[in-house]
């Protein structure tokens, strides 16, 4: 009887004591505050100072932001409304469409670039996230032609002919690529050119088929122009940059030297010089009356510039690969194109992601340089027409803050995506 626990020992717990709450100072918000903000005298002083600074900033910024006027017609009216505090945000509402689309884009057609912008997300999604269905890539392939048709207007036959050229080129390429890569490439280019040449007659003859109102390039403007230039130039300069990087590593001297000279020349020249060449100098060389589209000229120049930088970034990735990878590819009996596609480039590109993103973000911001050659992109719009209208001359903070916000949103999104991609592709080589 006395052997049972209940008799021999006064009390035995048969359940675990619930954990006691930690001392007040070691839990929750207090702990966090103590560890992060008030760990020691010096830190506490800095924290207090930081809060004072923050309060000072916010006490100026918040009334400016929330006390602003949004519905006035010009700066004088606005100043009467806000009475010294608050911002004149009415410039944004008054010139909203101009900031986004420029001064001359027909207002009844604003839905077209907007639709193209929305479709852009659908188009790039399968490229960015490879767990999406691969069929979506078909839309990605069609997107450039749809977007061109939507933004520039005109008959749908022009983008269709352009598309047909690529399709013909692709079929010739895939038919010949078994025999020789170079021959397939040459055949594809010839096939595409012939298709475009023939299709040119068709689209000229039937200029009214499914035609949207045509918008000439010089009427493009606002943030739309920055987006067009940024998206087109980044997506074109990536493949060109890869080709240049491979060319620079090539053992064939002519190809190698062409690539070296191109890269070194373009990298040695400021972008603004290239833009001036595109805008001003080319006009002297072209016969009078020829109208070589200005946006096209600018796209070519920015693409050349960006592809030289991307080529160097990718060359860094190629150089970082161990020699053994190249030898392994050779020992498997892969030819050059296969070795590059299957072994070298996937690894080299992965290493180059931060560099490529860096170039892409820089390039997107560099598109504002076109304001110097009198194109009305977002910055050009603000510097030129808006700040020099009698209505809004003198409103700086609101406009530049808005421009900075738009660019920040895009660039931050790009940077976040690249960090996500790096984490996903990480295979533990570090």
């Amino acid at each position, binding site marked *: 009887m006395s052997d049972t626990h209940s008799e021999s020992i006064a009390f035995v717990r048969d359940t675990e004591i619930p954990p006691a709450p930690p001392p007040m100072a070691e839990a929750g918000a207090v702990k966090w505050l103590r560890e992060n903000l008030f760990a020691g005298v010096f830190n506490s002083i800095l924290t207090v100072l930081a809060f004072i600074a923050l309060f000072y900033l916010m006490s100026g910024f918040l009334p400016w932001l929330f006390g602003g006027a949004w519905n006035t017609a010009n*700066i*004088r009216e606005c*100043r009467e409304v806000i009475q*010294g505090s608050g911002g004149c945000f009415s410039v944004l509402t*008054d*010139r909203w469409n*101009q900031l986004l689309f*420029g*001064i*001359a884009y027909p*207002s009844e057609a604003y839905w077209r670039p907007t639709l193209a912008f929305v479709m852009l997300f659908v188009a790039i999604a399968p490229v960015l996230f490879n767990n999406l269905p691969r069929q979506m890539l078909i839309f990605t392939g069609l997107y450039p032609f749809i977007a061109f048709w939507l933004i520039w207007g005109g008959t749908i036959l022009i983008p269709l002919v352009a598309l047909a050229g690529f399709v013909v080129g692709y079929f010739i390429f895939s038919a010949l690529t078994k025999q020789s890569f170079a021959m397939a490439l040459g055949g594809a280019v010839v096939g595409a050119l012939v298709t475009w040449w023939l299709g040119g007659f068709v689209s000229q003859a039937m200029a009214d088929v499914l035609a949207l109102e045509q918008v000439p390039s*010089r009427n493009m403007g606002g943030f739309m122009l920055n987006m067009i230039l940024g998206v087109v130039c980044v997506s074109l300069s990536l493949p060109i940059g890869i080709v240049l990087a491979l060319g620079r590593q090539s053992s064939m001297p002519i190809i190698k030297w062409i690539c070296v000279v191109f890269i070194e020349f373009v990298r040695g020249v400021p972008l603004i010089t290239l833009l*001036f060449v595109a*805008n*001003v100098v080319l*006009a*002297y060389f072209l*016969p*009078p*009356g020829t109208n070589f589209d200005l946006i096209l000229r600018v796209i070519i120049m920015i693409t050349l510039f960006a592809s030289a930088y991307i080529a160097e970034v990718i060359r860094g990735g190629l150089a970082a690969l161990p020699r053994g990878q190249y030898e392994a590819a050779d020992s498997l009996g892969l030819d050059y194109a296969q070795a590059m596609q299957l072994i070298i480039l996937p690894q080299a590109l992965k290493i180059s992601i931060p560099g490529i993103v860096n170039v892409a973000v820089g390039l997107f911001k560099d598109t504002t340089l076109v304001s*110097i*050659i*009198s194109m*009305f992109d977002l910055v*050009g719009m603000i*510097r*030129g*027409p*808006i*700040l*020099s*209208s*009698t*209505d809004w*001359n*003198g409103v*700086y903070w609101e406009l530049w803050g808005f421009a900075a916000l738009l660019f920040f949103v895009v660039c931050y999104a790009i940077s976040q995506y690249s960090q996500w991609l790096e984490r996903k592709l990480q295979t533990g080589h570090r």
Partner: protein
Amino acid sequence: MKKTVFLGALTIAGLAAGAAAAATLDDVKARGKLNCGVTTGLVGFAAPNANGEWEGFDVAVCRAVAAATLGDPTAVEFVPTTGKTRFTALASGEIDMLARNTTWTFSRDNDLKFEFVGVNYYDGQGFMVPKELGVSSAKELDGATVCIQTGTTTELNLADFFRSNNISYEPVPIETNAEAQQQYLAGACDVYTTDASGLAATRATFEDPSAHALLPEIISKEPLGPLVRHGDNEWGDIVRWTLNAMITAEELGVTSANVADMAANGTDNPEINRLLGTEGTLGEMIGLEADWAKNAIMAVGNYGEVFEGNIGESTPIGLARGLNAQWTEGGLMYSPPFR
């Protein structure tokens, strides 16, 4: 051999350029639009409004020429140009005329091979000071700090002025007009100097314009006017006489309101009748319709109306006519007679 072909191609291109330049009026008519170079934006002189339509003092000249040549003041393709791209745009034929508050100077007229057809605004470099400084003349500015845009003629004019008056100053170099406004308002300099029209436009944007004064001294001559390429005198004449028609119309009291009436019913003043094409063959001589000047005036108004509507005292910019008044009222606006 190759070189010859290349040179030959260049010659042909040059000839083609010459031929194209020699018939600007035909080009404009064939195109149905006037390509007019303007600034990318200058308060009161040229800027698009909220609907994207260009407005301003220089823009009115473009519209008047379009109305005179094509009968339609909206048939203008405005090509925005910066200070750096304006001359190449004109020389390469991208634009038919440039109305971009450009100062008429010897070297631009001769070395750059342009033809200034007249002056639509007599500007000059002036000074703006805060009233509390208590200065009433630029000669009292000894030892002042001056905000000045670098790399412009205003910088040189300023140095000349202070040297010739034997007084000293401290320059604060700045890059753009916007920066200058900020620096000046923040008190980084006592004086801001640039073209007087620019000063007035800048002052109009201040919270309290009445606290700042423009000094009476104008220390340089900046005659601003429209220009065309060398080598097509007929086209130059059209632009020149369209501008003159606007000036003459003000002198004779022809306005956009009464011009239709005057042209329909005729007047007792033979010069008005010649101007409006109801008498004589002036339009034919210049290669245009008889009612070219009437169209121009009807579209934009006479010189005085354009001035008042865009930069005059009733606008926020509030420029006085000053040198730009008619010669009959003590200004320099003086058009040769329509005869």
